[in-house]
């Protein structure tokens, strides 16, 4: 990705106060902005306290456990966004395309998973061994389905437009997004559908000084962390991973070095789709309901996360996903869910003003 502003002379001629502000506030301002919400509500909890109900009685607490609970929920929710965000970041890093259909590939992951549960006969009553085997198989199949789907979309809608004007693939991406939404609409209908709560996701696993951790939180983290480690290993240690990084840096030079650029781009789409498939399974188990339109909102949030972390950077996408998850959870819980979208996008604008490269953007493009 080229530098944001080409020369110093242009920079000086335009919006000088803003640049002055940016150079002095920069990353620290962004970190301060990100800490603002948790610190504010932490101090509020300590000074004003918060109420909750214990055995039907209203009890006022003056501690940080509610904040801790919000953050745990935020991190686990953010783990899902992180998995989707990686897909955006991989694709953007290599071909600089905002893959609008990615959110809907994630929806397809949820739908495939839920249908597979039906096919395997998994219900809330299934024993632990069967459940683990069934879910592992579902995860693998869902990842393969979504990876192939993303691959197919790339082949049909983006590859023919490789040399076209830059905005043309954006429109085919939107077109495929509509097609996938319609597929989802025909598949499960237009209403939000509840699905079997296979793992009893709201069950408390353990409790550290008043912060309860539920099964769903464990699940989200346990799926996300190994996948991200595996992806990081793949991208940084294997030959195809190196090819991806090379293509992201300079497609033309990579081609001259004998890298098959088309295959590499397909690989990036495949990997992104697979992670979206995994996220789809986790989402279905976490939220216990699915909707053909879920990918739209999730896609926007995950895209925000990818940008916040520094688009083109895998670690950045994970960090961005987790942060957005926390912001979203705090906003849902404290400000009101109807304002969450405005809060999340407000943060996005703040990032763009203070640090357009994103949090980890100054590192060279990892996987693009």
């Amino acid at each position, binding site marked *: 990705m080229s530098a944001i502003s080409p020369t110093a002379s242009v920079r000086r001629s335009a919006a000088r106060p803003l640049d002055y502000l940016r150079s002095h506030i920069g990353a620290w301002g962004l970190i301060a902005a990100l800490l603002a919400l948790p610190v504010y509500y932490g101090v509020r909890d300590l000074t004003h306290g918060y109420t909750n109900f214990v055995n039907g009685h209203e009890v006022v607490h003056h501690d940080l456990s509610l904040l801790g609970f919000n953050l745990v929920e935020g991190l686990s929710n953010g783990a899902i966004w992180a998995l989707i965000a990686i897909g955006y970041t991989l694709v953007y890093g290599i071909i600089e395309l905002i893959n609008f259909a990615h959110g809907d590939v994630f929806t397809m992951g949820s739908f495939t998973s839920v249908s597979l549960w039906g096919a395997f006969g998994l219900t809330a009553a299934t024993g632990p061994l069967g459940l683990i085997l069934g879910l592992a198989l579902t995860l693998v199949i869902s990842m393969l389905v979504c990876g192939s789907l993303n691959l197919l979309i790339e082949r049909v809608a983006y590859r023919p437009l490789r040399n076209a004007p830059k905005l043309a693939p954006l*429109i085919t991406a939107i077109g495929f997004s509509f097609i996938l939404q319609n597929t989802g*609409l025909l598949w499960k209908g237009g209403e939000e559908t509840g699905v079997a709560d296979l793992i009893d996701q709201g069950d408390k696993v353990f409790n550290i000084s008043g912060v309860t951790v539920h099964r769903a939180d464990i699940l989200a983290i346990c799926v996300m962390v190994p996948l991200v480690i595996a992806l990081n290993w793949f991208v940084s240690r294997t030959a195809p991973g190196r090819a991806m990084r090379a293509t992201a840096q300079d497609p033309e030079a990579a081609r001259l070095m004998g890298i098959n650029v088309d295959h590499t781009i397909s690989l990036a789409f495949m990997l992104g789709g697979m992670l979206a498939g995994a996220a789809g399974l986790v989402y279905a188990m976490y939220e216990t309901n699915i909707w053909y339109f879920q990918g739209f909102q999730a896609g926007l949030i995950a895209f925000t996360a990818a940008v916040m972390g520094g688009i083109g950077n895998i670690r950045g996408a994970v960090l961005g996903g987790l942060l957005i998850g926390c912001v979203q959870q705090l906003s849902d819980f404290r400000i009101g869910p109807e304002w969450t979208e405005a809060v999340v996008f407000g943060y996005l604008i703040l990032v763009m003003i203070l640090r357009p490269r994103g949090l980890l953007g100054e590192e060279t493009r990892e996987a693009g």
Partner: protein
Amino acid sequence: MSELQAQLQEWRDRILARVPGAPAWLGGRWSRVIAACGMAFAIALPFFFSSTNGFINATVVSIAYVVMALGLNVVVGFAGLLDLGYVAFYAFGAYSVGWFGSGFFFDAHVNVLSSAAPGAIGVHLNFVLILVCAVIITSIAGVLIGLPTLRLRGDYIAIVTLAFGEIIGTFAVNGQNIQLGGGETLTAGNLGISALDLPYFPGLGKFGLLNVRPWYFLILVIAFIVIFVAIRIRDSRLGRAWIALREDEVAAVSMGIPLVRTKLLAYAIGAAFGGISGVFLGDFDQTVNAGQFQFSFSVFVLAMVIVGGLGSVWGSVMGALLLSYMNYYLIPDVLNSLPHTFGLNFDLTDLNIGIFGFLLVIVMVLRPQGLFPERRRRMELSGEVAPEHPELGEATAGGVTA
């Protein structure tokens, strides 16, 4: 795919070779004749249909989208600033008519040349005054949204504008809980502001809800003015500055083009067009409902501009007509009944968005530069030289790569 494109290109060239050149008093080109015929056709069109016809209804909406698309084309096509939050200006335009042309502010009693009864509650301004208000509000909004994007590059602009569009959408939904004092709220949220004043022009009388024709001519006049303005701006000093910035920001700035002012003017003018269309659409729909201001609207208008041909005025017009007819007439009214005509018991209603998406993919894969690409871009892609500057042929022939 490329064989197909080459074939299409060949047919096009063969047909064009047979068309005789236009006489000199037309500037040697037929485009003005075609434009004049198009205008005459547009003026005559409603007289072939009844005044309540569904097709004319769809046409009114389509022409309003033409105005929208022309506005977005100023920002995305001329100035090259990818705007994914255009819905914000639709919202501001529509709320202008909601705020200043209905009984929404129940404490106020303002009536300026409107069709409302004297002394009616609410603010009631004449339709033209509402348009002026909308232009002012949306221009300011456009500049405010543009400010943080000044230092950003292509896709980052898209992200910031997208974020602004979504935030304004959220405010529209939640505005019913934002108190302005005295029990007044900012918006009516998803309930919508309804019973908007119908346009009223002294001497012409008040518009009706059932008779579509006056609405048709109103939006047609607006569209003609906007098309004219768009063409004149494109060819003006400002328009050339936009195109220069789009092509190479560094070179343009070092040639003395004021970056901040030029970019902000693009946002302001694009926003103003969107606001004008927003006022009309809000009034025509007779409701200003927060549910209308979704991200998909921005995407819809952007698709019109790109399908039509980025940066091309007539491309935007045709793209807007094509996609909105597809969405508001062809798919719901024509295609849905098609299976029944062939005796199939099958309903296409559930497939609407899928068909729309499929058509978008097909159009873009077959014609990535858009249906009617801008002349400058067409020449750039094919290495053609403008007829009025044959001497440029030498210079460009070597450097142009398709």
